[in-house]
C-alpha cells in the first residue's frame, strides 16, 4: 500500500484539486472563530484598569495589547484560510491508526486521573499505579520487573525530592 505523503506540487496527479477543502481550511476557521469570539468578549476578559482620583495609573491601556494580538490572530487566520488551498500538506492524524488514538486517549485519561488522585493517594502510590498501569497497557509482559520498577522509581523520586532537595510532595496517605 502506498504511504500517504505531502504533495507540495500543484497538479492532477493524485486527483486532488488545490481548491479542495483540507484540514488547513478547518484549522484556519477554528482559529478565526476563536479570535473573533475573544475579540467580541474582550471587555469581559480584561478587568478595568486601576485608577487613583480618576486617573489611570498605567500608561498603557491593559486591553490595547490583547486587542492588537487578537486582531493580528484574526487577520492571520484569514490569510491562512486563503492560502490553505495552496498548502498541499498531509494531515498527520491520517497516518495514525484507530488503535493509536485509543492509546493516546488512554494515556491522557491516565494523566488526568493522576492529577486528580495525587493529593488524595499521595505521590508514591499514585506514581506506582500510573507506572504499572501504563507499562502493562503499553505491552510490557515482564510483570515482576514492572512491579519492581513501578514501586521503586516513584519511591526513589519521592525520597530524592523530599530528602535531598527539601521539596514537599504529597505524602502516602496511610502513614
Amino acid at each position, binding site marked *: 500500500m502506498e504511504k500517504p505523503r505531502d504533495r507540495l*506540487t500543484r497538479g492532477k496527479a493524485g486527483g486532488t484539486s488545490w481548491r479542495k477543502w483540507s484540514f488547513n481550511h478547518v484549522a484556519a476557521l477554528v482559529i478565526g472563530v476563536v479570535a473573533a469570539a475573544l475579540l467580541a468578549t474582550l471587555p469581559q476578559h480584561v478587568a478595568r484598569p486601576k485608577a487613583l482620583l480618576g486617573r489611570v495609573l498605567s500608561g*498603557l491601556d491593559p486591553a490595547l495589547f*490583547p486587542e492588537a494580538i487578537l486582531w493580528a490572530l484574526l487577520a492571520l*487566520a484569514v490569510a491562512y484560510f486563503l492560502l490553505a488551498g495552496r498548502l498541499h500538506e498531509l494531515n498527520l492524524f491520517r497516518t495514525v491508526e484507530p488503535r493509536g488514538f485509543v492509546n493516546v486517549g488512554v494515556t491522557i485519561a491516565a494523566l488526568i486521573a*493522576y492529577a486528580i488522585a*495525587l493529593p488524595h493517594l499521595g505521590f508514591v502510590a499514585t506514581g506506582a499505579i500510573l507506572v504499572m498501569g501504563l507499562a502493562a497497557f503499553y505491552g*510490557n509482559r515482564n510483570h515482576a520487573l514492572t512491579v519492581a520498577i513501578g514501586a521503586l522509581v516513584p519511591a526513589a523520586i519521592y525520597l530524592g525530592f523530599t530528602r535531598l532537595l527539601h521539596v514537599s510532595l504529597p505524602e502516602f496517605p496511610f502513614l
Partner: protein
Amino acid sequence: MWDFFVQGVGLALRLDTFFMMSAGLLLGILVGALPGFTTTMALAILLPISFFLDPLVGIPFLIGVTKGGIFGGSIPAILVSIPGTGASVATTFDGPALTKKGQSRKAMEMALYASVFGDTASDVITMLFIAPIALVALKFGPPELGAIILLSLVVITASATGVFVKGLIMLVIGLFFGLVGQDPLGGVSRFTFGLFDLRSGIPLLPMLIGVFALPEVFEAIERKGAAFLAGHVAGRQGDRLTLAEFRRCFRTILRSTGIGAAIGAIPGMGQVVAAMVGYTAAKNASPHPERFGKGELEGVAAAEAANNAVNGPTMVPLLTLGIPGDNVTAILLGAFIAHGLRPGPQLFQDQGALVFAILVAMVLANAMFLVLGYLTIPFFAKLVTIRKSLLLPLTVVFALTGAYVYQSSPFDLLLMVFFGVFGYVAKKLRFDVSPMVMGFILGPVLEYSLGQTLSLAQGDFLGFVFVDRPIASATLLATPVVTYLLWRRALRLRREQAARAAAAPAHEH
C-alpha cells in the same frame, strides 16, 4: 568586566558544581542515546531539579544536560541510523555506514572529540565577545529592547519548520498565552476565565514540559509495541580512532566549529541547521565528496562539531538581551527566572561574576564531557535497545513530577496535560510550537517595553522612536525587510522541496 571574569573563575571552581555538571552530562548522554527522546524534553523534565539548587550548581547542571544530550543523540544515529535528537540527523548520513563496516567505535569517538572541540572553541569565543556585546546592550532602553524582541520573534518564526503563516499564527497564539494572568504594567487581571489558579498567569514550566515532552510520548505510543526497538545493535564495535584519522579531519572540525558558532548567534537557527550546513560545507570542500554518505569519518566530524559549536553563542542573545534563540535557551531562561535572575544587559551589571562563572563552568564542563563520554560510550551504546514500554511510563512520571514541584499545585498538572494535547495536535497539523513558546516568553517583556516607551514618548510615540532613538528605528525598519527576505527564502525552499517531491516518483518507478 575583567574583574567579573576573575571572580567568576573563583566562583565556578566548586566541587558541587562539578558533581552536578557530571550528573547533567551523564543524564544528557543517557537521554540523547535513547531514540525518540530529545535534549529539549530532557531539559524540560530536569529543569525543576535546578530550582532547588544554588544557581551556580543548577544552571551548570542544565548546561551539562544540553551538552551531553547533543552528543548522546549521535550514538543511535551511528549505531541504528535513528537520530537520538534532531541535531544528529546529519550524523546518520555517514554513521550507520561506518557501523556496517565495523567501525562504530571510531565513529562514536570521532563524534565525541569533534563535539568536545566544537563546544569548547565556541564557549571560548562566547566568553571573548559577550562582554563587549553586553556593554553595547547596556545602552539599550525600552524602545531598543522592544524593537529587537520584535525582530527576534520574526526571525525565530521564519526559521521554524513549516509554512510561514502557520509559524506566525503560533507566535501570536504564544503572545496570547502570555497575556493570561496580570498585565505587566498595571497588574490588571486578563483572560483568567474565572479560574483563580490563572490569576498569576500560565506557569512556564508545566507549559514547557507539556509542549516538549508529552507530544513525544504520545507519538511513541501511537504504535504500541511496534515502535520499540527489539533488534540488536551490530555486535563488533571495531578499532579505536587513531591520531592520524583525527588529524585528517581537523580542518573539517575547525570549519564546522566556525559555522556552528556563527549560526548559534542567530536566534532561531539552532543545531539542526548548523549540522546540515557544516556537513554540506565539508562535502563541498573535500577532494573526495563521493565518499560522503558511504561511511566517511569526516562527515561525522563535520556534523558533530557544528551542532555542538552552537551551544556557546546561543547564550549571547540570552544573557545580553534576555532573548532565547531556541527551545534549549528558552528552558534555560526559565531556570534563570526561577532563581530570580532576569537575563539581559542589567544582569551583567548586577551579577557579572555569576554570568562569567556560568561561562567558565561551560568550558570546564567540556573537559568532563571528554572524560565521561570516553568512558561511557560502550555502556550508552547498549541503551539503544532498551524497552520503551517501561521507559515511557517512567518518563511520564518524571514529567508529572517536574510540573508539580514547580508550585505544588495539581492544577499545574492539568495545565501540563492541556499543553501536551495542544502540542500533539499542533505537531499533527504541521504547526511548529517553537514560535509559540518564544511568543509566550517574550510577549510580556515586549508589552512592558511598549508601555515604558509610550511613557517616555510623552504623547509623541512616532517622533520619539523614529527620530530620537536611531537604533530602535533602524531595527524596526529592518523588521519588514528581514521578514520579506526570510519569506522569500522559505518560498524558495518549498519550491525546491516541491521539485524534489515531483522528481521522487520518477526515480521510484
